[in-house]
């Protein structure tokens, strides 16, 4: 970030969570010049330089800042939905210190100049690290590969067609094969397009509501085909959101076979099921659609098992005009930057995962997957941190979100966990 405060910052008397060392215990962090200069139980009030600003965390959690690997922003082109500045404020409020920006802008992020625009964008209004994901195909049209090598050099951390699958088998094959030269990561939206023209999950509820629907097989078929292309090409493929029991089974087998496949999920798929769209609630209209309860349970089990590599927010801001419509006409997507942490913490409070495991899925593992510098507590690491109270009860209030768009399916949802401070490169960007 632009200007780290000259004065050192010390977070003491905290519960440190460091997924890299697997450490969950008392300690503190001393920050100077945008980096961590001391981390661990030895960082106490007694050990600090006199000039330091001391924050007594009173036993609250200090963890690496969250790395959110799936964020749709809207700048350039859809600034009425979200700008880089408003997204970064939402991120800071949610304890997210790095966002990976999806290429679905207007124009599409498919050229060196646009990748540089996102990667180099700085300023006092950009509170967190923003790294670009580039389009996998020019104009996201699924036909022609983008300049994978040049875009990687310009700062693209991965390649994706965003909300749509790269559906042409030959195109995906070529991208994965060519991309291997640069060790490029391809991020796939896993839904077979010709089977995904519906607006919700297939089943009894869709039948009752009279809505067109997608079979869970649409996801499975795309994933199974793509696994074969990975097998043939050796390219790295990440399925952005895996949402069904059957899909998770085939990913388990592909990983066991040693293929370079990873997968992620976003909180709605482990916190909600298809019943959230009852009464035609368009804020719960997502792609892929929210699934049946047994699929939700399979996602939770896969998180426990470690099969799912990362949790991202899938933040997709939509203005009221795009959502206050008959269900089939409304846009897909939900905001998520500010609900990522509290909703993910349900996995901890419900006893499915340890706090360390939840934080690992939100920090170290996305950092490793996308090869980002954050996601760890270590001397000389960038001082990207979050301080949060893991236990305080908070009811999510859509109106209080910092995001320009308020389309959350979690409005009124009771959670536990509140971000108290977010630090990016040593600068305090949020205090709550």
């Amino acid at each position, binding site marked *: 970030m632009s200007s780290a405060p000259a004065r050192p910052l010390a977070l003491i008397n905290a519960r440190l969570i460091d997924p890299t060392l697997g450490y969950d215990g008392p300690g503190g962090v001393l920050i100077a010049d945008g980096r961590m200069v001391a981390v661990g139980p030895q960082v106490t009030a007694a050990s600090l330089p006199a000039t330091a600003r001391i924050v007594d965390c009173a036993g609250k959690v200090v963890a690496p800042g969250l790395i959110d690997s799936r964020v749709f922003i809207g700048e350039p082109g859809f600034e009425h939905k979200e700008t880089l500045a408003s997204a970064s404020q939402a991120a800071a409020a949610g304890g997210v210190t790095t966002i990976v920006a999806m290429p679905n802008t207007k124009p599409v992020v498919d050229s060196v100049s646009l990748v540089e625009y996102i990667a180099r964008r700085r300023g006092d209004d950009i509170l967190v690290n923003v790294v670009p994901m580039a389009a996998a195909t020019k104009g996201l049209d699924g036909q022609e590969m983008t300049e994978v090598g040049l875009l990687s050099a310009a700062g693209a951390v991965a390649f994706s067609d965003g909300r749509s699958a790269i559906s042409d088998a030959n195109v995906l094959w070529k991208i994965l094969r060519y991309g291997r030269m640069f060790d490029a990561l391809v991020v796939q939206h896993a839904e077979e397009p010709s089977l995904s023209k519906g607006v919700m999950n*297939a*089943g*009894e*509820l*869709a*039948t*009752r*509501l*009279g*809505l067109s*629907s997608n*079979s869970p097989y649409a996801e499975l078929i795309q994933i199974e085909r793509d696994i074969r292309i990975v097998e043939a090409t050796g390219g790295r493929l990440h399925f952005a959101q895996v949402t069904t029991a059957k899909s998770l089974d085939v990913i388990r087998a592909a990983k066991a076979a040693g293929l370079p496949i990873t997968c992620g999920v976003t909180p709605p798929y482990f916190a909600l099921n298809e*019943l959230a769209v*009852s*009464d*035609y609630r368009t804020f719960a209209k997502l792609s892929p659609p929210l699934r049946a309860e047994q699929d939700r349970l399979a996602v939770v089990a896969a998180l426990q098992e470690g099969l799912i590599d990362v949790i991202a927010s899938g933040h997709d801001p939509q203005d009221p*005009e795009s959502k*206050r*419509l*008959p*269900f*089939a*006409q409304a846009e897909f997507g939900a905001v998520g930057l500010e609900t990522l942490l509290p909703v993910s913490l349900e996995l901890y409070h419900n006893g499915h995962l340890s706090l360390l495991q939840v934080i690992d899925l939100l920090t170290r593992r996305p950092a490793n997957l996308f090869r980002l510098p954050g996601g760890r507590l270590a001397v000389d690491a960038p001082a990207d941190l979050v301080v949060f109270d893991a236990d305080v009860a908070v009811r999510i209030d859509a109106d209080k979100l910092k995001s320009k768009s308020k389309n959350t399916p979690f409005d009124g949802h009771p959670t536990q966990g509140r971000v108290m401070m977010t630090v990016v490169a040593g600068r305090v960007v949020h205090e709550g």
Partner: protein
Amino acid sequence: MTPTHGSSTPAPTSPPGGDGRGFFHKHLLGIEGLNPLEIGYLLEIADTYVEQNRRANKKKSLLKGMTLINLFFETSTRTRTSFELAGKRLGCDVINMQTDASSIKKGETLLDTAITLNAMHPDILVVRHSESGAVKLLSEKVDGCVINAGDGRHEHPTQALLDALTIRRRKGRIEGLTVAICGDILHSRVARSNIHLLTTMGARVRVVAPPTLLPAAVERLGVEVFHDMRRGLENCDIVMMLRLQQERMRGSYLPSVREFFHFYGLDHAKLSAAKPDALIMHPGPMNRGVEIDTVVADDIHRSAIQEQVEMGVAVRMACLDVLTRKVRETELKNGGAS
């Protein structure tokens, strides 16, 4: 599953009369969620209007001074005319708006339209829309009562009520009858409303269709599924045909009209599997030679298709009467309306 989207407003706690009979929802958005007493009550009131409609003087001044807007976002002749007639026979002012041609093309949203119309204080809005859930969305923004005249493939409650009235008058009951609903179940709001109504009233409901025209998990709605039409019609009391929309031929739902008629068109051969006195119904407009053979459709001994149209007006009068009761009683108490 909690069917909260059937009729959105909960019934008030203290019904007038004290015997618990009546219909106390503000809107009629769907059949799902209604109980047998409520349905029975609507049918009883409708019965009285059948008699009135057969007299030379068909008009009552029950809804005098009230305004009904027929707001149709999808073209319709039958349903719109039926509501128009129902409104006029009860003495209310009826305005027809076929809006696919006007404001919607100018980019006005459904909710803008709702708010604009609401400012004109209609007492009743009868709404048809091509999207499931659109009528419910609109109902949240208006003060008057809303009747769903068909939303997407979701519900068409007055059609199910008029079908029930037809069945009840012909067969004397609904409970215990076996009803086969045949054809394009997947895209049919008529099928959904009828399934909800008939199962609620204790009929045994079968759906007869090729797998590509059945929605997922349809058996969870309490119906038996048949792909073979003759077996599906065996011992049926009622054969309810649905209209097959020609555009379904393009979506890989069916190979051809000819093949559909061969397997699912209602002709005398297939009909012979049903009870000898089985009644044939169709919501109209019919595609003769597609889902129904002309000879069968015109068989006055078997076909109730004309009667369905007649019952339609009576049922809609009953709905208008019942839904406006609370407003009319309040005005009477306050000495407002005559």
